């Protein structure tokens, strides 16, 4: 267990504990996606009909927000590897903004659904749509909280070029949240 300590660039990057967690999370999402796909296959008309009521433009904007945010996290890690703490802090701040933008846009979408009286029990499509997106939504909130901690730590100068495992681990989690949305978006909003 200690052998790898001496190796400079280790694989996977970040903390193994976090990777176990990420795998478990991806497994949950994978099963959820599979359940969605199977159910959709046997209810295509219903799913297509209600898919049309979703706001694809907003979802596309959300995709861009998350992708940009992920890009800033990568930039933050690159900066820290060059020991530029100030720059890294700024990038992390931007990535948090990206995450918050996602939350705001998603909440507008939810409030629209709520005003129409749509909830988990409305029909099978909305059950899946709300379950999946809300489960992901909560992950975004958790991800932003992690980014906030990373931002504070970077500001305090806790990470250096030699020691930034926490930043890499937290960043990996944020990429996972992003990745899940990249599957979720076409699966729920686009796939016909």
């Amino acid at each position, binding site marked *: *267990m200690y052998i790898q*300590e001496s190796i400079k660039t280790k694989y996977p990057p970040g*903390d*193994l*504990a*976090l990777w176990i967690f990420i795998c478990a999370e991806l497994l949950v999402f994978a099963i959820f996606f599979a359940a969605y796909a199977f159910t959709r296959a046997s209810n295509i008309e219903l799913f297509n009909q209600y898919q049309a009521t979703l706001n694809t433009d907003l979802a596309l904007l959300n995709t861009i927000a998350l992708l940009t945010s992920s890009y800033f996290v990568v930039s933050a890690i690159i900066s820290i590897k060059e020991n530029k703490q100030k720059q890294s802090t700024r990038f992390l701040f931007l990535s948090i903004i990206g995450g918050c933008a996602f939350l705001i846009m998603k909440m507008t979408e939810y409030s629209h659904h709520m005003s129409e009286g749509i909830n*988990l029990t409305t029909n099978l499509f909305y059950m899946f749509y709300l379950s999946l997106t809300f489960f992901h939504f909560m992950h975004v909130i*958790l991800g932003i909280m992690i980014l906030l901690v990373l931002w504070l730590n970077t500001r305090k100068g806790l990470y250096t070029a030699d020691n930034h495992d926490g930043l890499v681990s937290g960043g990996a989690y944020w990429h996972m949240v992003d990745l899940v949305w990249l599957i979720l978006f076409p699966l729920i909003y686009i796939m016909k």
Partner: protein
Amino acid sequence: MSEVFTKSMARNIFYGGSVFFFLLLIALTFQTHEAWPERDNHENLTDQVRHGKELWEVNNCVGCHSLLGEGAYFAPELGNVYQRYGNSTDAIKAFIMSRPKEGIEGRRSMPQFNFNDEELEAIAQFLKYVSGINTNDWPPNIQG
């Protein structure tokens, strides 16, 4: 130098993950409360049914029977007994009354509880109310 797998990360995942999923459970529970009025047959929850539930409890019926599949598996499921007995509360009452005091030789038998008329009616009405709950089509057939 960093470790591959640190205790502090494991700890953070434990606390973060637990709080996260506990909040999710609360959110889903909240949503469940919203959905209940259409499913839980509360409009038929009369005082008589309430009395029936109390009798169901203080006689520990669930110690032998199952109700909506929960309880003991020694005696028949009662969530749909109202339908199984031809939508008749009288048939349910007659069965409960008919149980021999000393049991049946070599076989399982329900005890004789010596209920009065009013109690019998309450229990039967309780079982009728239960049969009106939306259980996602469970049990699979009338046998329970």
